[in-house]
């Protein structure tokens, strides 16, 4: 029995070693495809989870409104309360319509073909900032496509499944975008930092000249080199500028609110 157990242990160690090394040595392209397959597998769960999350948010919001109404209108009759509640619901709808109108206007005015997408989940991985959107290869999405909002650059597509796609956010350290500072000849590379997150984004522009005269509030625009992001998209505004030993480094406040944006556009081509 002991010999059998020893045999099983050695065999399992051997199998673990072989499979572990094989998986590690798989070409990056294959791992990328595997990730796509896995995200396709979980896409129904992501969609359901996203709708449940939105539903829960709605219920919470509704209860809060009722609470507020009860506090403010204790002496009013029940039908009056109902009218007020429906009025507040209509106000929510109005802001939703305004938001969608802004997005539609941006889409129509843009020089690019934009595909609207909805964010399904925002992954809270410790060292990476990415999210999943509800569009995939069946909608014409491919890797390395730029993702924007009406406010500016949001990220780029890294993995595509049939129904969903993964977007690497502008706040991630591994996404580097060449940028230019509006009104100057300065160009640099913007990227997130390792301590950056969707909630507390921390972007830095590196490789600026030491003599750059950058002031807080100056606009940072994509330079267009690199082939992913078209030129002229807003990345953010300069927060501060520091001169280091070899280069100038600027902190940037992103134009897009990465933590709360719900709808984005994938740049699928030019008009």
């Amino acid at each position, binding site marked *: 029995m002991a010999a059998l157990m020893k045999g099983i242990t050695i065999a399992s160690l051997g199998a673990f070693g072989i499979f572990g090394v094989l998986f590690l040595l798989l070409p990056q392209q294959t*791992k990328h495809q595997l990730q796509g397959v896995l995200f396709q597998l979980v896409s129904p769960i*992501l969609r359901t989870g996203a709708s449940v999350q939105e539903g829960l948010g709605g219920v919470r919001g509704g209860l809060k409104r009722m609470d507020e109404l009860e506090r403010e209108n204790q002496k009013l009759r029940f039908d009056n309360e109902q009218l007020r509640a429906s009025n507040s619901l209509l106000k929510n709808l109005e802001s939703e319509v305004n938001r969608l109108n802004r997005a539609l206007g941006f889409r129509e005015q843009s020089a690019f073909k934009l595909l609207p997408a909805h964010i399904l*989940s925002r992954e*809270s991985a410790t*060292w990476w900032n990415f999210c999943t959107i509800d569009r995939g290869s069946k909608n014409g999405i491919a890797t390395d496509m730029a993702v924007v909002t009406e406010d500016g650059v949001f990220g780029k597509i890294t993995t595509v499944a049939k129904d969903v796609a993964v977007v690497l956010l502008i706040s991630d350290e591994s996404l580097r975008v060449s940028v230019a500072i509006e009104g100057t000849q300065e160009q640099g590379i913007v990227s997130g930092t390792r301590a950056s997150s969707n909630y507390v984004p921390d972007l830095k522009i590196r490789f600026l000249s030491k003599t750059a005269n950058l002031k807080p509030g100056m606009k940072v625009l994509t330079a267009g080199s690199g082939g992913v992001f078209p030129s002229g998209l807003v990345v953010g505004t300069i927060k501060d500028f520091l001169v280091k030993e070899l280069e100038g480094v600027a902190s940037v406040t992103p134009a897009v609110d990465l933590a709360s944006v719900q709808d984005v556009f994938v740049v699928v081509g030019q008009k």
Partner: protein
Amino acid sequence: MILFFLALLVLIFGSFVFQLFLPPVLLVHGAVILFVPAVYFYGCLCLPFSLTLALTFFTGMLNDLLTIPQLRSHSDFPAGISILIYLVPGLVMHGLKPLFLRHRWETHCLLAEIGAILTPFILLAQYAMLSFERREILLSDVIVWRIVGPGLISLLIAPCVFFILTPLSHALGYRPGLPLAR
């Protein structure tokens, strides 16, 4: 045993997907809430060595494919590294199996807390790997909190996960160290 092992695989997969919807805890400088390590450590404690290795492979692979963006050309954290990262604390926990087999709630609680203390090791190893690949070591209070924070959160989560998984294993007819329930 196989039933419980399969249940653990499903739970780990479910925990990974569930984690996708959990926002980071801003009070702890954006530390994330991790359920997977607690479920994984429980598996390491109660499963035999061969299944512990299988669980490690599954957990590490899913971790890299579901929580790390794999770029088409190059990734600074190649998928598969987490199998090795999970293996180390997993083996530590597996070494504590004799304690687990005493089937006392206080030792289970203690082991859950040991698992929670080992959770930051996974994040620290990821950070070390990332720093090595990006050729830059950055240290700030935010980064320290991102490593330590999930461990602190796990101190609360892990005992609850352990106390849910124990009846589940019993319900599935698996009582490690004891004769199988008929």
